[in-house]
């Protein structure tokens, strides 16, 4: 059934179709309408779930995790300061290996107060052990929530997962979205699986002090290994979803017009749509350019990216957040994994769209042509390999 849905409603529909049993969340712009919608589904009896209307995000994730620990499929959603407030619980949830799904509607972090999107919040969670993905459009939001439950609950993975969507650009923008039939989702998503359930009469203890620190490091190692194993699961799940619905997103990355591309753009999130438009125009202008859309930040698709970049003459990575004192986090990951796989290619970082600055396809074309022209005229690196874009054609340095 095709319906016009905002990104947030698409997220709510994803949770509903996944037959979530417990929802727990705290309002924050631009996430709010996800919880409002879920509350409406539940109160109307359209969704058989309990809702815990907590007093903070720390509690939102605590309660969702508690429910998941008790054996029920649980869902929460947040953004920005809410995500930071939860940060401690993100570590606990991943460390406990209890499957769980959260939507993160990306938003700038203050000060100053600012509700527009950038990726500072979601990128700040990279080390927690969660699976983390970003969506490009509302259909991908809905599909990814359902998929994330399947990935998270796969015994090869058993890790919680975040589905990210850009605030306002997706969360409050209506697009036609195909809502799959419940029985399609039921066929796709099996009964919940999890490594253990805390229940009465079974004296299982979660999280007490280890007698041997090697057990602790092995737990951390096992999270890392499961992230690696998740790559295969993500690809399989994508293929299986494609068989049922005809929609594939390529697993961890989507390559757009990468065949015989000489140069590559790398980006993630909603502005990938603008990047695709930029690629089409640049191709018409005669630039041999392709795009690698990063869907998963964790696990990071190092192999796919290195493989694509192996034949590249130049790469430009757009980051919507920055690690001050270093560079854009996506850039840093691309750089390291290219290096790990022995790929040597000029890689430029553009820090743009931070603080919600609007970036359109023309801005992207501006950055890309500046980079390619510099490369071809032997002027690269530009004054810096890490450039800021403030919008309106203003670059630094």
């Amino acid at each position, binding site marked *: 059934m095709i319906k016009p849905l905002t990104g947030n409603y698409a997220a709510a529909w994803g949770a509903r179709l996944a037959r979530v*049993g*417990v929802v*727990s969340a705290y309002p924050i712009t631009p996430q709010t309408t996800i919880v409002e919608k879920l509350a409406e589904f539940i109160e109307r009896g359209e969704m058989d779930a*309990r809702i*815990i*209307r*907590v*007093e*903070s995000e*720390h*509690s*939102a994730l*605590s*309660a*969702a*995790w*508690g*429910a*998941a*620990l*008790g*054996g*029920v499929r*649980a869902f929460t959603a947040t953004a920005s300061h809410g995500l930071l407030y939860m940060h*401690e*619980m993100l570590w*606990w949830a991943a460390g406990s290996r209890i499957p769980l799904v959260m939507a993160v509607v990306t938003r700038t972090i203050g000060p100053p107060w600012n509700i527009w999107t950038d990726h500072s919040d979601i990128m700040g969670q990279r080390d927690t052990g969660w699976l983390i993905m970003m969506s490009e459009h509302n259909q991908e939001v809905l599909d990814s929530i359902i998929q994330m439950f399947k990935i998270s609950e796969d015994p090869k993975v058993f890790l919680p997962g975040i589905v990210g969507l850009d605030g306002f650009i997706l969360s409050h923008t209506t697009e036609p979205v195909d809502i799959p039939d419940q029985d399609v989702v039921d066929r796709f998503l099996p009964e919940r699986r999890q490594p253990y359930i*805390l*229940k*009465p*009469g*079974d*004296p*299982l*203890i*979660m*999280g*007490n*002090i*280890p*007698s041997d620190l090697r*057990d602790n490091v092995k737990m951390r190692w096992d999270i890392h290994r499961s992230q690696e194993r998740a790559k295969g699961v993500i690809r399989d799940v994508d293929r299986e979803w494609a068989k049922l619905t005809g929609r594939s997103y390529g697993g961890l990355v989507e390559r757009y017009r990468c065949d015989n591309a000489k140069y590559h753009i790398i980006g993630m999130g909603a502005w990938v749509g603008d990047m695709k438009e930029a690629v089409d125009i640049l191709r018409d202008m005669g630039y041999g350019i392709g795009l690698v859309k990063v869907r998963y930040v964790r696990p990071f698709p190092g192999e796919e990216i290195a493989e694509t970049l192996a034949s590249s003459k130049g790469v430009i990575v757009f980051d919507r957040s920055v690690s001050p004192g270093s560079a854009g986090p996506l850039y840093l990951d691309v750089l390291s994994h290219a290096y790990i796989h022995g790929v040597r290619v000029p890689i430029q970082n553009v820090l743009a769209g931070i603080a919600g600055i609007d970036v359109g396809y023309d801005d992207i074309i501006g950055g890309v042509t500046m980079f390619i022209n510099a490369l071809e005229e032997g002027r690269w690196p530009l004054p810096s390999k890490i450039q800021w874009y403030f919008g309106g054609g203003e670059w630094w340095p």
Partner: protein
Amino acid sequence: MALSIKALPKKKYVLPGNAACPGCPEAIGLKYVGMALGDRAILVIPAGCTSVIQGLAPGSGLSFPIANVPFASSDAVAAGLSAAIDARGEDGVIVVWAGDGGTADIGFATLSGAAERGDNVIHVCVDNEAYMNTGIQRSSLTPYGAWTTTTWTGKREGKKEMPLIMLMHRVPYVATASIAYPTDFIEKLRRAADMKGFKYIHLHAPCPVGWRFNPSKTVEVARLAVQTGMWILFEAINGRVRISPFSLPYKDRKRRKPLEDYLKVQGRFRGIGREDIERIKSMIDDAWNTLLKFT
């Protein structure tokens, strides 16, 4: 219908090999939780001494199902667990076992939230009147005059009235208890377990390490707190306060033991003077007067 300890289940929930200090009140309290609730109990335990008392993984000195959780998260985790138990149709009692810090300070907003929502949880505040796990720092439940490692000359502020604050949340059940009165505590736990909604039990738990007394005297110190009127045992079902039988005699201040008996067995009050003692006595009178207004 007096409860006899002999009639309680024999199964042990606090096992040899646990890592409690000698004379530990938290280990004593946990024993009574086992006796009261048996296999129905699931414990949610934030950071604090009981994180250590459990002993080292993969072994364990406690035989409850336990979720160890971050310091400020317990009642929210418990709310989620209780929703899960309900959804799965299991017969369990979710017990948050939190220290005075985990209850009255860092965990306070979470606790208040769960109480206001009426989540089906028993919160036990095991009150040793300081942050013991990190080395005896003051909390908002440390009493006036007490030495801690962050109040070297004695705490200048009084103890927060946690049980009354919880009473004002209008939850169905609020009680105080003491590790010196096991039958009273066990009965209260059982009463709480039979009620739906949020239940709060505040367990007074003198700690030999932090209060500076001989570990063989834990129960004696706890009993003196009640006998001097310093700690009042009561119970409030649906807001109706009733002083518990063990505290009833001390409503009459003439029947209270001298406060000095309680203070002098503890090293933490060594530095206080006469004026401080008078001040504590008037605080005790205040506490009784306030509480009796609710009876």
